[in-house]
């Protein structure tokens, strides 16, 4: 390393550190927010054939509400239409909607209702709550990241979060093909953009 290299590298790291520190989003203004279905999504990922590869799908129809307040008063409710499952394959979608998986006729919605939230100044924390799928309600905890806060095209206040977590599908009675066809562990990712009401 030559004589100038160390100070230059230190300066670069310092700048990078400053830039990283600036990524912590501005706190979301308190209030009630409605999920913007167009810019939000609920995704799931499983190991195919017991873990040969990762297979991903999504739900196209999602709605819900966030009440942003002090952490102990903040509430999140998300509702997903199971009939909107989209694996990018019509035949597989039909099977996923059947009683072998989501049983969309009998259980048209999957819901998450928060029971507790933590969020540090860097915008990272946890979101605990109850997930109801196929009529079975179980507590789950997601890792939560506050992505950003800002104004939309019409000046409306918007806020974005990402929640990620893992559930066991057999806990919810989704037993078909577990674990040989698709793993029992299902990774969930919920991207939320919500508009202040």
């Amino acid at each position, binding site marked *: 390393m030559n004589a100038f290299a160390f100070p230059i590298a230190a300066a670069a790291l310092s700048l990078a550190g400053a830039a990283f520190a600036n990524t912590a989003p501005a706190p979301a203004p308190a209030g009630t927010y409605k999920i913007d279905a167009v810019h939000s999504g609920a995704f799931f990922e499983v190991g195919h054939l017991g873990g040969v590869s990762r297979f991903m799908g999504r739900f196209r129809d999602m709605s819900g509400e966030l009440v942003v307040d002090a952490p102990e008063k903040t509430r999140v409710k998300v509702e997903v239409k199971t009939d909107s499952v989209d694996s990018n*394959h*019509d*035949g*597989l979608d*039909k*099977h996923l*909607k*059947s*009683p*072998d998986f989501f*049983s969309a*006729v*009998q259980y*048209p919605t999957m819901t998450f209702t928060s029971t507790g939230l933590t969020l540090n100044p860097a915008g990272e924390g946890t979101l605990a709550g109850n997930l109801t799928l196929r*009529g079975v309600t179980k507590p789950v905890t997601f890792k939560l990241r506050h992505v950003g806060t800002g104004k939309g095209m019409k000046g409306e206040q918007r806020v974005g979060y990402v929640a990620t977590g893992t559930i066991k599908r*057999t806990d919810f*009675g989704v*037993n*078909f093909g*577990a674990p*040989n*066809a698709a793993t029992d562990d299902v990774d969930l990712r919920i991207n939320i953009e919500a508009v202040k009401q």
Partner: protein
Amino acid sequence: MPDTSFLIPLLLQGVLAPFAAAAIAALALRRAVGGPAATALAVAAGFLTSYAATVQGAWSLSPQSAMDWQPWVVLAAVGGALLVDRAPAGVRLFLARAVLGVLLSFVVVWPAIGSLGAVKASTAAVVAGIVIAAAWSVRTRGLFAGDTHPLQLAIIAGGAGLAMMLDSSQTPGRLAGALAVALAACAVIGRFRTPAGSAAVGTTLLVLGSLLLQAQVYAGFPLVYVALLAAATVADIAPALLASRGRSAITWRAKAASIALTLVPVAVVVGLAVKGMQDSGGY
């Protein structure tokens, strides 16, 4: 070496288990309760054995889904079939069968009432129950030469199972396949000479009807497939009528025609299901 981790459980759960259970039940019960009742009970035993092996969390005491209700539907089907056949022949017998068919169909559609609404769900149950009762009554009116052979019902159940599996109703499809295997076991035990008998015909139609109703209501199994399979149950009516008019010389032809006519709609359904799967790209 090919991966057999999928195939071996399928063979054990869907073929060996129902065959063994049905065969043992048919042998054990033949003398105790008589042939016709033994066949009905053996079909139910074979089916329930496969259900217990195939469906995880089976035999729920608080059934939530139509599949949870399935073992209770089977028990009610075989018990009901044995019971209603004591009714005097004619309209009262048909009505008793229709009431049983509607009740069991209603159990299947009950969990879907929230989505379908009471009117649509009830209509589906009533139509399914009446179609089952009609097929059951036609098949057991003595029109068919040598009565209904278990293998003839096995062809319909097997074809229905294959079509349901190809059309994304995997669990009902596998169970319909197990029903076919149980019927085949009864045919083997009866040395291919013993007819199914009214109670076994009724049990088979009630159980197969409940599986098709599940696939249709909960997984969109096409109605045209259901209609063709329903037609298959009585597709051999014409040669049966000819045979029943005393043309004993053509009885063997009538039997051959009977099986061929049963096969045609079943083959059409399987062909349509294969085409549907190919059109959607398979997976």
